């Protein structure tokens, strides 16, 4: 019987947990599942709708029009000289949408998938990851919309004299990754907590909306600073503000760019992502008993 302890087991199911128990090899083995989940999300989302993927265009366009009417035409928030307000808003909304879609899409991971999680094992982190990837496609389409309007404004009107992409645009892919990571990390934290405390589901739905107002989506950070200096730290240290400001700087050349703010966005999103991963991992094993 002595030999039994020296045998090499493939894996051990036990009550103890390490802080990070991520088996990257296992996740890699399930990459096909990730791909199929993304495919499922995409092909089933607009089944039995008439406009189908056109909804991807409609939502940001209409929101931008409304924002332009209300915040720029009615409330006269300046968006910078030589930059059309519509384009300014579209940039903000496009980037905000990706973050918020990642956040809300992942924040109910456990609750929405409790049926399947209760039956079969696979690395749970696949599910929120698939959300981030399928939203990436939506983001890509919205980015195309943004680019076409950009081209229209630059080449067919004279309103966009100063809207010039900066060399920092090369960093855009990283910025998108940060957005995804931040939304994913935040979403994973929330999804882990909602398994036990459902109150958070209510918080998420309106919290995301409130957060948008605090993330400089429809106004430049500089304008907020000049108007409400005593609250400006609230907006300034919001990592989403930094990301959106950077996005607008890269694409339209409005706002400021500093390596410091780029690093700030990078560090915060990576930290949030890692914290989310740890909490998610901790919850994953026992959530089925508390959900």
């Amino acid at each position, binding site marked *: *019987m002595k*030999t*039994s302890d020296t*045998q*090499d*087991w*493939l*894996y*051990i*199911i*036990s*009550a103890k*947990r390490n802080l990070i128990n991520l088996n990257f090899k296992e996740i890699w*083995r*399930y990459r*096909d*599942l990730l*791909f*199929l*989940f993304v*495919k*499922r999300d995409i*092909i*089933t989302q607009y*089944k*039995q709708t008439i406009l189908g993927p056109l909804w991807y265009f409609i939502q940001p366009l209409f929101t931008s029009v409304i924002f332009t009417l209300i915040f720029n035409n009615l409330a006269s928030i300046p968006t910078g000289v030589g930059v059309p307000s519509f384009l300014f808003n579209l940039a903000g909304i496009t980037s905000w949408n990706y973050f918020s879609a990642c956040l809300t899409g992942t924040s109910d991971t456990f609750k929405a998938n409790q*049926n*399947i*999680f*209760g*039956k*079969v*094992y*696979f690395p749970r982190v696949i599910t929120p990851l698939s959300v981030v990837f399928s939203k990436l496609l939506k983001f890509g389409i919205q980015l195309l919309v943004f680019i076409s309007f950009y081209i229209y404004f630059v080449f067919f009107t004279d309103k966009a004299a100063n809207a010039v992409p900066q060399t920092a645009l090369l960093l855009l892919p990283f910025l998108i990754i940060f957005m995804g990571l931040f939304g994913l990390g935040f979403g994973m934290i929330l999804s882990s907590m909602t398994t*036990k*405390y459902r109150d958070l589901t209510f918080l998420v739905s309106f919290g995301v909306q409130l957060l948008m107002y605090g993330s400089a989506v429809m106004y430049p950070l500089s304008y907020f600073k000049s108007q409400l200096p005593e609250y400006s730290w609230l907006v300034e240290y919001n990592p989403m503000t930094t990301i959106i400001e950077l996005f607008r700087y890269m694409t339209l050349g409005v706002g400021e760019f500093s390596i410091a703010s780029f690093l700030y966005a990078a560090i915060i999103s990576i930290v949030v992502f890692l914290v989310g991963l740890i909490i998610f991992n901790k919850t994953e*094993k*026992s959530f*089925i*008993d*508390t959900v």
Partner: protein
Amino acid sequence: MNNKDIILKATNISKQYRLGLVGTGTISHDLNRWWSKIRGKEDPYLKVGESNDRSTKGSSDYVWALQDINFEVKRGEVLGIIGKNGAGKSTLLKILSKVTGPTTGNIKTKGRIASLLEVGTGFHGEMTGRENIYLNGAILGMTKKEIASKIDEIIDFSGCERYIDTPVKRYSSGMTVRLAFAVAAFLEPEILVIDEVLAVGDAEFQKKAIGKMQDISRGEGRTVLFVSHNMAAVKSLCTSALVLKNGKTEFEGDVEEAVNFYLEGSENNSNISVFHDRKGNGKLLIKEVKVNGKNEDVKPQTGLPFKMTFILDNNVQAKLIDVQMDLRLDDNLGQRIAWLSTSLVDCDSDDEVVNKLVFKIDKLNLNKGKYYVTTYITVKNEISDWIQNAFSFEVEEGDYYGNGVLVSTNQSKALFNFKVSNEL
């Protein structure tokens, strides 16, 4: 014992659950747990759990759904896990398939475990059958390549070829299940965990499914853990079995012995009036049962007279004409053998108040073995007393045909009077 053959080993598996509503109240418990953890003490709630007996009310909010389960499975073995509802079977399977973690203990395994706790997990109604095969296969742990190489076999096995490019929401429920089982049947993990999947589909498909499972375990030498209430299926598929009761191991070993042990455990022959698990309004209750041969001190024997006497508690002075009493006879594998009912025959003295009912068979045609009786009584078409597996009786081997030839029970559960001739 050759340790090399052991593919799965469970040591001291326990699982604790909290009863009642799990809600905001848990935050205080969480804080309490956290506080004792900080001070380096044991989790206070781990101590208070009681054993999981469904019918008695416990004083603690925490119960042990599983307590100190130990077992080993060898490569190629088919282990049946049996037990009544709430015995902890599904919890054990959930832990095995990593859906939930154990509270204490660990399971070591040398192979990949795939579970089939419920077929069709993750099916999406909007996607076609083919797309769902890929998705479901991937959820169960197959790669796209593996699925692609088997897709024709899967479709063929499911028998849904014609609908394979139609969204699954248009399928009948039977077709969905067939498709789902087909995917699962072509999984190739070292250890397969199966829970009651055979209860689905029509008879033809069930046969196919059992056949496939036998192939998996025998032909391909796969290790299978199988949970079921169907003793016949357990007996035909498994090589050994584990009997659980209230979260504890009651028996472990050979499948025949385990099934017998389980069935013995579920009978209650001694005193039927204290039987808990009965349904009905209780107007007319069974107080006592006697099963015997010609007279009270003769045991029932094949081919001889047989008598079942029921002493009744008639609380409403019901008359025999208003009463119907059914007896459902099952064999030791839980297969229904016979149905005897007062509605099938004329009874004497219809107008009298019943205090006693006697069922008589002049020449008992049940073969040697143990039989389980479910009793069912209605008064004026309302259920009065219904007891599942109320009692059992044993029939001794007898010479039914009167020629000294004893027919084996394996050949014939019931014996028939018949004639053979070469004339019309």
